[in-house]
C-alpha cells in the first residue's frame, strides 16, 4: 500500500513529465480528448504522489485502498502515464493507446488496472461513489472514496440526486474534486448552462466546499488533504479551478478546445520530442 508524499518541487516536475507524456499519447492517438485530460494533470499527480490516495499497484483492488472514481473518464488520458509510473501496468503500454489489442482506449474502462468503474459516460461517479462510501461506512472501514468530475458533467441530473443523497447520509468519507476547467464540449459552461456559484450550491446541499488553483500542486495537496481530514460531518467538495488544455497554448482559451486535436508537430514543439 503506497501513500507516497513528494515535495511540491518534485510534484511539479512529475506533473510536467506526465503532461508531456499525455501530449505524446495524444500525438500517437489523436482520438483521445487531450484538452480535458490536460486540465486534470496536477489533480491526478497530487492524488497519487501527494500522499492523498492510498493505492496498491500490485493489487489494484486491495481492500485497504482508497477508491478513486474518475467520473470524467474521457478526460483522464493523463492518468495513464501516472498509473504506468506507479506500476499498475507496464509503461510500454502507453505506446499502444487506442491501438488494436490495447486495453488503453480513448475512453478508459475498468479493464485498465487502477480504474474502478465504467467512466466517460458522464454523471455516474458521484452516485456509484456514494454507494461505495455508504458501504465502507457500514462496514466500519476508514477508507475514502474520491470522485473526480468535470464541471460540464454537473449538467447531468443524476449527480444532483447523488449530492442530495450523500449529504442525507453524512458521507464524510466521500471527497468530490471538480476539475472546473469552465468548458464543456461546445462552449464555456457559463454560456451553456451556468453553474455559478458552485461552491455555494454545494454548501446549500449540505457539503463542505473549498476552492483551489488546480494547477498549484502545493495548494491542491493542502486543500484536498484538509478536506479529507476535516471533522465536517458530511461529504466534501473541492472545486479545482483549472485551464482546459493547460500547457498547450493553442488549446488554452479556445472555447472549442474539447474537440480539438493537436498535430504531431505541435506536440513535438511542446514536449521537445521524445523523452
Amino acid at each position, binding site marked *: 500500500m503506497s501513500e507516497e508524499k513528494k515535495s511540491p518541487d518534485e510534484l511539479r516536475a512529475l506533473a510536467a513529465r506526465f503532461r508531456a507524456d499525455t501530449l505524446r499519447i495524444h500525438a500517437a492517438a489523436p482520438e483521445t480528448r487531450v484538452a480535458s485530460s490536460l486540465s486534470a494533470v496536477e489533480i491526478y499527480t497530487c492524488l497519487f504522489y501527494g500522499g492523498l490516495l492510498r493505492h496498491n499497484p500490485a493489487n489494484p483492488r486491495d481492500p485497504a485502498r482508497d477508491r478513486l472514481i474518475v467520473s470524467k473518464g474521457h478526460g483522464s488520458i493523463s492518468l495513464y502515464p501516472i498509473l504506468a509510473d506507479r506500476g499498475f501496468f507496464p509503461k510500454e503500454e502507453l505506446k499502444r493507446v487506442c491501438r488494436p489489442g490495447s486495453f488503453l482506449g480513448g475512453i478508459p*474502462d*475498468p*479493464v485498465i488496472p487502477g480504474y*474502478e*468503474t*465504467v467512466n466517460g*459516460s458522464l454523471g*455516474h461517479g*458521484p*452516485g*456509484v*461513489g*456514494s*454507494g*461505495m*462510501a*455508504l*458501504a*465502507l461506512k*457500514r*462496514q466500519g472501514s476508514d477508507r475514502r472514496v474520491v470522485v473526480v468530475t468535470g464541471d460540464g458533467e454537473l449538467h447531468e*441530473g*443524476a449527480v444532483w*440526486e*447523488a449530492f*442530495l*443523497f450523500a449529504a442525507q*447520509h453524512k458521507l464524510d468519507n466521500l471527497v468530490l474534486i471538480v476539475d472546473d476547467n469552465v468548458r464543456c464540449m461546445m462552449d464555456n459552461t457559463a454560456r451553456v448552462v451556468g453553474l455559478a456559484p458552485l461552491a455555494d450550491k454545494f454548501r446549500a446541499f449540505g457539503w463542505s466546499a473549498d476552492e483551489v488553483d488546480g494547477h498549484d500542486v502545493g495548494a491542491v495537496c493542502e486543500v484536498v488533504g484538509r478536506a479529507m481530514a476535516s471533522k465536517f460531518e458530511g461529504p466534501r467538495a473541492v472545486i479545482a479551478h483549472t485551464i482546459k488544455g493547460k500547457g498547450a497554448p493553442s488549446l488554452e482559451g479556445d472555447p472549442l478546445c474539447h474537440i480539438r486535436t493537436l498535430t504531431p508537430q505541435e506536440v513535438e514543439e511542446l514536449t521537445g520530442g521524445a523523452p
Partner: protein
Amino acid sequence: MSGPKMRMRDSFLQAMKERMAGEKDIFFLTADFGSPVLDAVRKDFPDRFVNLGISEQNLVNVATGLALEGYRVVAYAIAPFITMRCLEQIRINLAILSQVRPMNVTLVGVGAGYSYEVSGPTHQALEDIALMRALPNIGVWSPADAATAAAMARQALDEKGVRYLRLDSHPLPNVGDAPTADELRRGFRLGGSKGASVAIVSTGYMSHLAVAVRDELEAGGIPVRTVDLMNLSSPDMNALETALSPCRAILTMEEGFIGRGGMDGLLAIQLAPRLPKAKWAHAGLAPHYSFEIGPRDELLAANGLSRSALAERVIELINA
C-alpha cells in the same frame, strides 16, 4: 391453480426478510416505494435498508457502489421507473461493469404489464421485457405467482449476477406448485397435457390466462401443453425444445408490446427454428399506448387477449 391469492411482492419481501436476518451482507434499497412487508424490513434492518427517495438513477448507482463493496443488493421500485427512468445507469453500471467486476444486484420492478390498470401508460410496464432483454449480463425473471417470486428471491441471493425481477402488483393464486430447483434452473414450468400437439407459452399474469385458455380448449377435446416461462433472458433452450417437440401449434402470450423484442422475439429467434414442424403465433399488445381505464381483463380483451379470443386463436393456428 392452487392456494389462496397472494401478492408476489409480499412473498418476495418475506423471503428476503428471512434471509436478511441471518445474512448481514444483504442490502435493501427502495426509491420511495413501499408496502407493509417492506415496513417490517425497514424496521428490522435499519442499517441495511435505505429509502433513496424518488430517484431511480441514483438508486441504481448507489446499488452498484454497494455491490462493488461486497453487498448483495436489492433495489426496489415501480417496474417502468426502475427499468426505463434509469436505463443508462443500468447499462453502464450493471450491464457493462458487471462483465468486468462480478456483482450481485437484483432490480425488482412492481407493476408488470397492465398491473396498474387505472394509472395509464406512465405506470404500466409494456416495454420493460424487451428493453431489459436487450442488455447483456442482465437476467430477466418473470414470475407468474407468489410462490415463484419467493423462490426467485432465494435464487437471486444464491447466484452471482444482475437481474431484473418483474412482479405483478395484484394478489394472484399460484399457477402450480412452487417451482423446483430444476425448474428454476431451466427457467420454465410445465403444465397441462404431456405429449399434446398444442402448446401455449406464457409469462407473468398471462400464465394465469393461459391456464384458463387451456381449460377451455381441453373441455372442447383439445389437449394443451402449457409452459410458464419464468426466465426471459436465458432459459434452457435445449430443455424447451425437448418439452415442445411434440407440438405442431404453439401460441406465445405476454403482457407487453408484441414484435419489439419481448418474449416473442426470444422464442421466434431462438426456439422456433429448432421446432420446424410447429406453426407459431404470438399474442401480446399492439404497439400503441392505451389511455383507457378499466378492469385489466377488459384492457386485455380490447387487445384480443380474452380467454375466448385466445382459444379461438389457438384453433385458427391448428387449422392454418
